């Protein structure tokens, strides 16, 4: 059974951490303020916690089973995580399209997959390594290569 502490940990670990990472990356990349996104994060955190309370209330009333509760909470975290991952990918790709003619391929090769072609999770180190690459191709483009 997922305790509130555990749930909070998972929300941070799987969602807030990634979302903030995405914000920081985009802030850096576009040199623009992302305060509205941070506010969305804060609101989502709030909704998550009230969802938790609400759903546990149902559990107490025996309307929901323990297993259901765990599943629903995990689904919630998973959906936030997947949405965030997709939006980081989408936003970065939109920027890169300006100078990368084959952005889809580039993202697929270097972000979604490791150099052996296995799918890779988007983590801080993966993202940093990828941005370094992206910057390189950007310079190459600026130099007209």
């Amino acid at each position: 059974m997922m305790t509130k502490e555990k749930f909070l940990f998972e929300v941070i670990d799987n969602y807030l951490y990634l979302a903030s990472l995405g914000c920081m990356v985009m802030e850096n990349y576009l040199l623009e303020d992302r305060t509205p996104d941070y506010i969305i994060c804060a609101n989502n955190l709030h909704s998550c916690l009230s969802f938790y309370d609400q759903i546990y209330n149902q559990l107490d009333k025996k309307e929901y089973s323990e297993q259901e509760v765990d599943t629903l909470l995990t689904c919630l975290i998973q959906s936030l995580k997947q949405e965030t991952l997709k939006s980081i990918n989408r936003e970065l790709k939109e920027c890169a399209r300006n100078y990368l003619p084959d952005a889809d391929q580039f993202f697929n090769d270097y972000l979604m997959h490791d150099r052996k072609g296995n799918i890779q999770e988007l983590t801080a180190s993966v993202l940093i390594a990828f941005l370094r690459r992206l910057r390189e191709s950007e310079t190459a483009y600026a130099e007209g290569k």
Partner: protein
Amino acid sequence: MQKNETMLTPVYRYVFSVLDESAVTEDRIRQMRVFKSHLRKSACILTETKEIESILDCTIELLERFHESEEIGQDFWNNKLKALQCDSCQSCYHCKKCRIYYWKELGEVLLQKTNDEKKSKTYFPVRSLPDEIQRHLEPSASISTLYLSRIKRDSIGVFRNKFLMLKGMSSSTPAMLNNIFDTNDYVGGGFYLNWNGYGVAIDPGYSFVHNLHHYGLSVLDVQAVIITHEHIDHNNDMRLLDDLHFSAARFDEEKEKTHIIDWYMDEISYAMASVLRTERSGFKEETCRLHRVMAGDSAELKTNELDVTFFPTKHIPKDGTYNYKEHTFGCSFCCKNKVQKKIITYTSDTKYFNGLLEAVKEADMVIANISGIYEDDYMQIKEKSTHLGYGGCYNLIRKCSEKYGRYPRFYFLSEFWNGKSDIRYDIVKCLKRELEEQGITDIRIIPSETGMLYDIEDGSIQCSQCGQYTDEVIVKRPTGLNEKIEVLCRECYF
């Protein structure tokens, strides 16, 4: 949550746990319907429920049909499988067609369909990792990553165009001495050469990797390894070096290309590595190229910058004859840049014979493995049959001077046996005096010690105290037992 889970993983876990409890009954089906309605109620907060709901609908329908009759269930499952043969769900960041996997998994549980794609099952583990195990598996805890992050401090600059002595004593004596004196101070090792960023490990014997790390280098600073013969003070650490390198090369994902080491080895060491490769226990193709070296071969290590030639040595007698096995060798490096070319010769283990002079005649610096010294050897009554010894080290320079009118400016003696006492300082002093008597005065003879650095470009050596490079060094007599040999510049000495 584990990595690479999809939107459907939690649902799968739930469905599986429900189906696991008993056969498909009305109750179970009702339970699923209730779950679906609960899911819908949560839809206000769950951003993506369409996907989950539709797969749940299919699941419920399958259960209903299956409850009717197994055959009908089968048919429904088969038809649906075809319908689900589309790309991705659009809900996952990574979707390797999670719906179809889900469906196949479900088929396996319900209809005992064997899933031939078991290997790709990473999305739907039924068990989830307990936290206390998970945290040990987190990539942040990986020692390979930590090892690599130390490497990234990039100390290689200090070693650029330098030759680093990493060898203490010969054979297994360090292990014995460490035991006798209850310490870890005694080491074996090898040598490390770096020319323009290209690193060569030479004879990685017992404790080589330890020494390499101790002086701030790592296996990723090594581009080639040379092993002159199979004795443990020359190849003991080959497996450790390879294994460590395999991990480091593999984990270094930020680097574009896989880091590869070229191994140039004598026949026996080559055979050892090949067996391990064939048995898949080391020296994997991904990270190593194995080269079998015969005396007389040469190799271009770095195009137009670094060559090596391998010359024959006489080290291991063939049983019952006065001949020697032919697979052992020494090596000469030719380090080139636009303005100059420097030659460094490493004799490795060999008895003295005139053929060696060829390799020494043009060298700027020579490292000679002296090994143990005996009375007959020192008195030049009987020369040593497997190593240079005192007589061999003396003849190598004297005869070179006689025959070619020149000799190397730097002469390092290495692989002291030290089985009885620390003879290094005294033997070098005597050798120097005796060569001087022959008119050979412009030579710096230095007992090699771990950590000593020789500047290949300038032909100078680092002062052990101030760290400056100088052409004129004074060897300091070590005072204690196994005290390190120090070489000092004039300022530090006086």
